[in-house]
């Protein structure tokens, strides 16, 4: 499930970008150190393989729907965590640029949810630890299924948290969770089953392919753990700061606890700056619209004019609508002029 730009606040987006960029930098550095120049083409074509795999479906018995591979865990088993992470990240990047799947700002979130979680978290810390050196069939089934499920659940959870922390969607956290987690339970089961089946196939056909991921040194246990701690702190910092800036974003859980008292103190950095700008100009600041929040934030809203929100709302609404129409006309006009002048510029050659 791809996170989308339109649901993100810049703070959450930027925090996740920082985390993912850190992961990519770390992964690349590790890879360079490994000095296996076979990896570059291999990762490239395996990324292509992920695309190809997504073109192919299988029908899930009894449901009438179909599923396909997502691939994070499978790649980690084949390539080891760093290479698998970079491969998934590159696939997501292509999707962001060409298919606008997600979007550029959401890329950070998506790389985290779909790449980091399965390859850098679940694989080294769960799969590798549990699977042992010579697993029996039953153990392999159990561990693979569990890992795939875990990765999917964590991914879905992150989508929910990121959305909630951004506060663009009004979907309450509990409802959203109830929606996302069961869906991803099914997706996780499918992922586990496919990963298991493909790994068994490879074990029969080319067992030597399965040795790379489990090669000694391929599991950067401590590094991963440390970087995840850093990530967690970063994210938690970003989220909590944002939560205090924008109580509406987490109103169902943080309720009105943060209130007006903490509002002005935590406004720092990009998010704070933009939020401040937003306060200055916004016509429908949410703390005015949500009656319960009005008393607490009266001082904060003093900068903006409307006291009787309906009246002002009406006036600004009319202005907004008229303005929108005019803007659209202007934009279209500009495009028209640009195109004309462009054609004129090319015409002499043609």
């Amino acid at each position: 499930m791809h996170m989308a730009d339109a649901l993100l606040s810049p703070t959450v987006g930027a925090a996740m970008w920082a985390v993912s960029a850190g992961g990519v930098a770390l992964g690349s550095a590790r890879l360079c150190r490994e000095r296996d120049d076979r990896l570059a083409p291999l990762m490239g074509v395996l990324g292509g393989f992920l695309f190809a795999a997504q073109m192919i479906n299988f029908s899930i018995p009894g449901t009438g729907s179909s599923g396909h591979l997502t691939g994070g865990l499978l790649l980690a088993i084949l390539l080891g965590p760093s290479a698998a992470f970079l491969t998934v990240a590159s696939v997501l990047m292509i999707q962001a640029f060409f298919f606008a799947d997600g979007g550029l700002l959401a890329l950070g979130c998506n790389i985290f949810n779909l790449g980091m979680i399965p390859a850098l978290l679940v694989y080294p810390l769960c799969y590798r630890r549990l699977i042992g050196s010579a697993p029996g069939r039953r153990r392999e089934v159990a561990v693979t299924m569990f890992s795939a499920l875990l990765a999917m659940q964590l991914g879905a959870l992150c989508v929910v948290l990121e959305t909630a922390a951004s506060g663009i969607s009004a979907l309450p956290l509990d409802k959203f969770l109830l929606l996302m987690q069961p869906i991803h339970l099914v997706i996780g089961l499918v992922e586990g089953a496919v990963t298991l089946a493909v790994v068994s196939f490879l074990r029969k056909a080319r067992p030597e392919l399965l040795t790379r991921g489990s090669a000694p040194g391929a599991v950067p246990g401590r590094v991963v753990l440390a970087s995840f701690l850093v990530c967690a702190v970063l994210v938690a910092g970003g989220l909590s700061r944002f939560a205090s800036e924008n109580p509406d974003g987490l109103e169902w859980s943080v309720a009105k606890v943060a209130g007006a008292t903490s509002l002005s103190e935590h406004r720092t950095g990009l998010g704070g700056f933009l939020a401040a700008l937003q306060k200055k100009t916004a016509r429908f600041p949410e703390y005015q619209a949500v009656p319960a929040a009005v008393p607490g934030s009266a001082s904060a809203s003093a900068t903006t004019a409307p006291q009787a929100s309906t009246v002002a709302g009406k006036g600004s609404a009319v202005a907004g609508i008229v303005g929108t129409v005019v803007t659209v006309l202007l934009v279209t006009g500009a495009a028209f002029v640009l195109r004309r002048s462009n054609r004129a510029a090319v015409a002499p050659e043609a």
Partner: protein
Amino acid sequence: MASVHGALLDLKRLDQLAAGDTAVHRLDPRAKVLATLVFIVCVVSFGRYELSALIPFFIFPVCLIAAGRLPAGYLAAKVALVAPFAIAVGICNPLFDRTVLVHLGTLDITGGWLSFASIVVRTALTVAAALTLTALTGFTSICRALVRLGMPKAFAMQLLFLYRYLFVLAEEGGRASRARELRSFGRKGSGLASYASLLGHLLLRTWQRAERMHMAMLARGYTGTFPAAQVGRFGAREVAFVLFWSALFIILRLYNGAELLGTLVTGYLP
């Protein structure tokens, strides 16, 4: 399957558009990437009920599309098709947020509808900007721009390989899936067993291809690093481009352009 296949065709199409030769095409990719990033950050930094202030931002993609002589209809259709997730989540807003924020005559508009509309507009803006960037620059150039903006080289290399072999493998996968389809009738035979085995075969062949590619690369002096790409110039035009757009975005972020215009107009029309 159809969606990925269509996506690949789009990819080829966007790539061909990037081969165009207009002033905006010729700009250093870094300038375009930077301007687009500023644009996206500004757009998503608006509050959830903001709508009219977003509209002026369309000036950016629209101008670039016009100046780059990109097929507007095609890009618009693409924008309309994507981001189902954002829309799906956004459509919940009217259900949960029923506070009436605006009265238009007898029509009450709730916060939910307002924020939903806002999500739709944001989606259109961010998606249009991303696609325009790609169509004006091409993926390879974007990659190189990102490298020069600090992306690790190993990752860039990986992206370039992926981009090159996407088509080859997608076609291979497409043919294999078609072969299975031809011999399975309806839903019969398209289950997990044949799926996993098919993927396994595909994976084996992918692996062999990687081995051959590696051989080809070694044969041409590959030593684990890619030679540096030719340098573009971040000149006055690039600086002007980035500064102009960033300034415009920040102004539009600070002042609701649409509403100011509207007040101007309605001010004269009592």
